[in-house]
């Protein structure tokens, strides 16, 4: 028995020390795909002791570089799910192997939405250019049956009410078109799918008095079946199956400039990384200008967040020039931009909770 105890003490301490040594001796990972952030490496550790920077850096280093880190997180998610939790890392574990981003009324800043709505309405009034507001319903609002029972979501109708109260700007009501259809939202990402964006495009065409093209005529292509997006990062459960991503064909002679640099419309390299949604225009930039020499004509000014990225492939067929501005990254004054670009139309496409 004494031998067993000594063995136990030795194993216990060696296990702990071994983890420490294994973590510190191994090669450092500098970037975590799952977490979408840079990890602390040995080179980053601060040398200042008096203010505690070294101490906290060392702790972060040990945690970040632990070789089984991602597996540990997946295991913990499984254990919590087994105990009955239906919300991990801010993602609801919905039915049908679906994850939905948790957004509640507390996350929606109605005052900010009202203020921005007035801003866009003023833009319309001042410039005389028609402004359309397109608030995209989040998955938690469109797919309530997939939510765990009683899980709180946010009041989409209240956001729409605030936006519809603006006299000058028109609102494209996407609520009915996107409700109840699981194929319109990704299962593992907070964005809508290309089909979801198509549903919005159909309404856009109707509002403009055009007939929307057939889905098949747009030549949709399944570019990957191995997509596990942003919500999978929050709740990396092994049981969540990967999903596919479709892209439609875009006109051939497009030229795309993002913050001054030329890029491809579809960034196929992104399909080999974890964050495959970046295939659309390489993600979010401050100012993106897309020119389509084959289109009939017209300029569209788009004020956007990442949801617009999957709607643009449809819109670019109808406009010679689309100017996209993401206010989070480009501190431009919209009025100046409108004066400069002289668009025929202005649209604001953002997720409803972040409008």
């Amino acid at each position, binding site marked *: 028995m004494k031998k067993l*105890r000594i063995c136990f003490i030795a194993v216990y301490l060696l296990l702990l020390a071994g983890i420490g040594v294994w973590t510190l001796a191994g090669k450092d990972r500098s970037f975590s795909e799952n977490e979408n952030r840079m990890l602390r490496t040995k080179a980053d550790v601060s040398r200042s*002791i008096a203010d505690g920077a070294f101490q906290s850096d060392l702790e972060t280093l*040990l945690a970040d570089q632990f070789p089984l880190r991602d597996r540990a997180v997946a295991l*913990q998610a499984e254990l919590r799910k087994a105990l009955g939790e239906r919300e991990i890392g801010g993602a609801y574990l919905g039915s049908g192997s679906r994850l939905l981003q948790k957004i509640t009324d507390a996350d929606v800043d109605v005052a900010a939405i009202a203020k921005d709505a007035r801003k866009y309405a003023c833009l319309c009034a001042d410039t005389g250019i028609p402004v359309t507001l397109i608030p995209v319903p989040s998955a938690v609002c469109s797919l309530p049956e997939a939510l765990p029972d009683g899980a709180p979501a946010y009041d989409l109708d209240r956001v729409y009410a605030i936006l519809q109260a603006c006299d000058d700007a028109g609102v494209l009501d996407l609520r009915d078109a996107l409700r109840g259809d699981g194929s319109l939202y990704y299962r593992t990402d*907070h964005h809508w799918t290309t089909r979801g964006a198509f549903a919005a495009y159909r309404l856009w065409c109707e509002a403009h008095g055009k007939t929307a093209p057939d889905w098949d005529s747009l030549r949709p292509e399944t570019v990957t079946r191995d997509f596990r997006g942003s919500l999978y990062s929050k709740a990396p459960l092994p049981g969540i199956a990967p999903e596919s991503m479709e892209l439609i064909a875009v006109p051939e002679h497009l030229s795309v400039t993002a913050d001054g640099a030329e890029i491809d419309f579809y960034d196929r390299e992104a399909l080999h990384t974890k964050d495959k949604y970046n295939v659309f225009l390489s993600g979010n930039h401050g100012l993106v200008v897309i020119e389509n020499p084959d289109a009939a004509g017209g300029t569209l000014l788009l004020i956007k967040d990442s949801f617009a990225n999957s709607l643009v492939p449809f819109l670019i067929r109808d406009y010679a020039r689309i100017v996209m501005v993401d206010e989070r990254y480009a501190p431009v004054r919209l009025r100046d931009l409108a004066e400069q670009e002289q668009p025929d139309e202005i649209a604001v496409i953002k997720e409803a909770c972040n409008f």
Partner: protein
Amino acid sequence: MVFSSAVFLCLFLPAVTALYLMLPRGFRNGFLFAASLLFYAWGEPLYLFLMLFSIAFNYGCGLLLDRPSRSEVGRRAVLIAAVAVNIGLLGLFKYTDFALDSLNRLTGSAIPLLKLALPVGISFYTFQALSYTVDVYRRRVKAQRNFLDFGMYVSLFPQLIAGPIVRYTEIESQLKRRSLSPEQMAQGLIRFTAGLCKKVLLANQIGVLWDRISASAQTAPALTAWLGALAFTFQIYFDFSGYSDMAIGLGKLFGFAFPENFRYPYRAVSVTDFWRRWHITLSAWFREYVYIPLGGNRRGRGRQILNLFLVWLLTGLWHGAGVNFILWGLYFFVFLAAEKLFLGRLLQKLPRAVGWFCTMAVVVFSWVIFACDSPALLGSYAAALFGANGLADAQTLYLLRSFGALLVLCAAAASGLPLRLWRAVCARIPKNAGEAAELVASLGALAASFVFLISGTYNPFLYFRF
């Protein structure tokens, strides 16, 4: 440094244990003193010197008070100085801003706050050092002449940060003579692992429920609010008692036998019983150094109630510099006084279950007072508890389903039943088999705790962050 961190578990603990075992006996105390200073300095590089001052000062006072002296006045003067400096330092760092803020509120003055960071563990090591000085004055114990031994006593890293509060008289004999055996060390590690599990697997996880409910306290219906209070009740118990378990386990690892600090407090059948099971060493300290010197219960009923009042005022205040903590202490004073006067005898006549239920209701509500640090928050939470926002809603059921299993686990762990069952099982199987199972289970529990510890640092971003 914190026990539930990778630096402590993977670097500090194995290194310190290994070196301790390899050193000859005579060097061990000095080594533990040095290791404890490193442990403390790791988190508080500058306040290390404050603690060193406290150690040196109390060491000096001890030597002064130990001399045979006919001058009672002189000895008393040293005692008063010692108490003043110790409490003064504690007061300065912990309570000045609270006092200034209260003064500002009451008189409308605008004295700027000092905004001193609270030195970690100061409430604990000050009380430990004071217990030494007072007992040397009372001639209950001889002064410790070895500075390293004394320094080790005050700063010993297992109980430096969060107790148990070890009075010098309880540990004096162990300073020079401690046995060390594989059995003791193994038991120490098992106890340490149990504490780690309580903190990482139970406290931190049920804390998520409390965080969620308290964030929307203003609109929570009654059942949700009580669920939240229950969650905090479990969180604080497993956090605090888990830490004590880790401290006692680490102490055992180095040959020390620390006093128990918790004895299944949520089994209590009266508030008096509760306080004999919760933070036992603090109550013992206050009884020994405040209640009894004031006369205890030997100067009549009225004086006893006054003494109780003072002790509970101070107990509340010790927990934090805030009105809610004072309120919390006095809340218990009311029930304790009532039990001493008449309620205790009444409770004894009722079935134990009734006493237990009433006690738990009182205790759970007390934690709400403890947790709400602003009167506004306390007001809205108390209103919610008593139905201001209705009885229940869809979210209540959602939370119950999400955390029900965890709550059951917490209740089982708090009841002590699993341990009793295990002991009963062990009595029927060969002794070695039982212990072997405990050793294996501890390793598994360690791994599980480490998984949860690492997962706690997982922090994904929707959009790329530098």
